């Protein structure tokens, strides 16, 4: 069953494009990544899903029901973490959680587990939120979004400001959620994060979805990187067929391989090569390819 189904969603801010003709669906039990740089339209899409923004065109279905303006019944099943998590600064963390929990009918059954997993101390919890560090505030946001054990978690750049240890703990929480049949929609511009936790990913650029694939398939489809180290530095970087030069540091040249590899290898033989490496494709490469696509 599709937990999220978005069809031809379009949003303009007056005349400025937010997103255009965005369509995708997210299945139950899936961790879905929404990847794009700042300003690509990730937050706009998420706010449309949450009925915070009003679409100019298109439809959103959540849990199999088309969402109409100002319907709130489905929000009970959702945990939402905004990109800029800015809670009431004057409230202590514990008061904030208690206050927000009163708006929901679902009890905060996972609060203690999340506090423990994210290593949230009772001292931090009793401090006024404005005195907490960015990372600690973000942890509070994660607890706020997930404590009522939602069926769908919509998280806008959730690991922003978290240290690597807490990030790992957060990924564990996500996997536990997913194992319990819950669905996670996660936006990020951190590629290894999406690569690590998501099953599928949509890449958004300039308000439009440019790719929607399973992570593994995406890796296979997209160009691979080639790093060639020559014995000596040469004046002009060697131009290789079926490859696009990415960068050149001293006698080391990085390429995107875009086509037939045998033709490329034949050209390489002619060069004074010291070393050749074909690194494993990662989303960083895919990302770069998508974002440099328009320039080429």
């Amino acid at each position: 069953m599709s937990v999220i189904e978005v069809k031809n969603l379009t949003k303009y801010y007056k005349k400025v494009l937010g997103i255009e003709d965005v369509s995708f669906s997210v299945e139950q039990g899936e961790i879905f990544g929404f990847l794009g740089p700042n300003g690509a339209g990730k937050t706009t899409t998420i706010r449309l899903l949450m009925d915070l923004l009003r679409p100019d065109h298109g439809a959103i279905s959540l849990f199999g029901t088309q969402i109409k303006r100002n319907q709130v019944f489905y929000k009970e099943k959702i945990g939402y973490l905004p990109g800029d998590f800015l809670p009431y600064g004057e409230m202590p963390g514990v008061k904030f959680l208690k206050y927000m929990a009163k708006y929901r009918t679902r009890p905060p059954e996972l609060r203690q587990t999340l506090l423990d997993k994210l290593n949230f101390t009772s001292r931090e919890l009793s401090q006024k939120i404005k005195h907490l560090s960015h990372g600690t505030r973000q942890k509070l946001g994660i607890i706020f979004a997930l404590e009522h054990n939602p069926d769908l978690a919509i998280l806008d750049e959730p690991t922003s400001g978290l240290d690597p240890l807490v990030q790992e703990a957060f990924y564990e929480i996500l996997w536990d959620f997913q194992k319990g049949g819950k669905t996670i929609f996660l936006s990020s511009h951190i590629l290894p994060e999406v690569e690590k936790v998501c099953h599928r990913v949509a890449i958004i650029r300039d308000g439009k979805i440019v790719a929607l694939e399973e992570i593994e398939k995406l890796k296979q489809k997209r160009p691979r990187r080639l790093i060639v180290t020559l014995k000596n530095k040469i004046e002009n970087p060697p131009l290789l067929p079926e490859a696009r030069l990415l960068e050149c540091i001293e006698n080391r040249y990085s390429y995107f391989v875009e086509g037939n590899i045998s033709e490329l290898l034949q050209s390489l033989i002619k060069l004074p090569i010291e070393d050749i490496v074909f690194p494993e494709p990662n989303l960083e490469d895919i990302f770069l390819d998508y974002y440099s696509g328009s320039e080429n």
Partner: protein
Amino acid sequence: MINRNYIYNVFREHLSFLIFAFILVALFQILMVTLVVEADILNIAQIFFSKFPPQVQQFLGEEFIAQFSVNGAVAFGYNHLIVLIFLTIIAIMLPAKHIAGEIESGTLELICSLPIKRLNLTFSLWIVTAFVLIIVVIGGWLGTIIGMLIYQQISNFPSTQLFQIGFNLWLLMLTINSYTFLISSYSREGNRVTLRAAGITLFFFFLNYTAKLWIDVSFLKHFTIFNYYQPQTLMLGQPIFVKNIVVLSLLMLVFLIIAFRKFNLRDIPG
């Protein structure tokens, strides 16, 4: 239709200011009664009044002298700048802070992601504002009663007029509150809303005085909300109460309906 959790939170946030305003307005009304009873201000005022040129005496009229009686002082107390400013602060502050201000700070985005309808939010906020404003008005009533009890003037207690003045003042403030709601529902910056609403209120206030002082533009008085709140005239028993209530209620309703509708349709943040 209302959300008790939200109401409680907003009310608790402004409780200390509410207590301060309540005590201040009550004390101010006691002071008004004290001044008239203790200082024989009526006699002083009549001597002072007789020195004015005839045109000025005509302009000030009987309202001026009437307010130096105990009842007149009470009415004057409800039209004094201190009372009006404190109530206006409450009327403007709540929607400016909790709608535009919270859009600006990002907290409204969190609240709106929870299972609560926007209409419930705005209506709950209006309920808190109306409640807080009536509490301060009750503070004024209480001050008047205490003042009259202290100075044994309670046998002349103008209960009907006092109720009318208080109710009229409450509606005036709710009207100011309603156009602040309206401005807020179009904005995303609390400070800007406060400035605009305060500017409009000041404009209405000075328009009222200009229309009163300058006979050629007296027709303008119909276009200021302060024309529909005249405590001294109400205290004299003139039948303006119903007209005032109808005009202010209609204005308030129109502003609120547009504001609630706009807030329902708007982007957060927008």
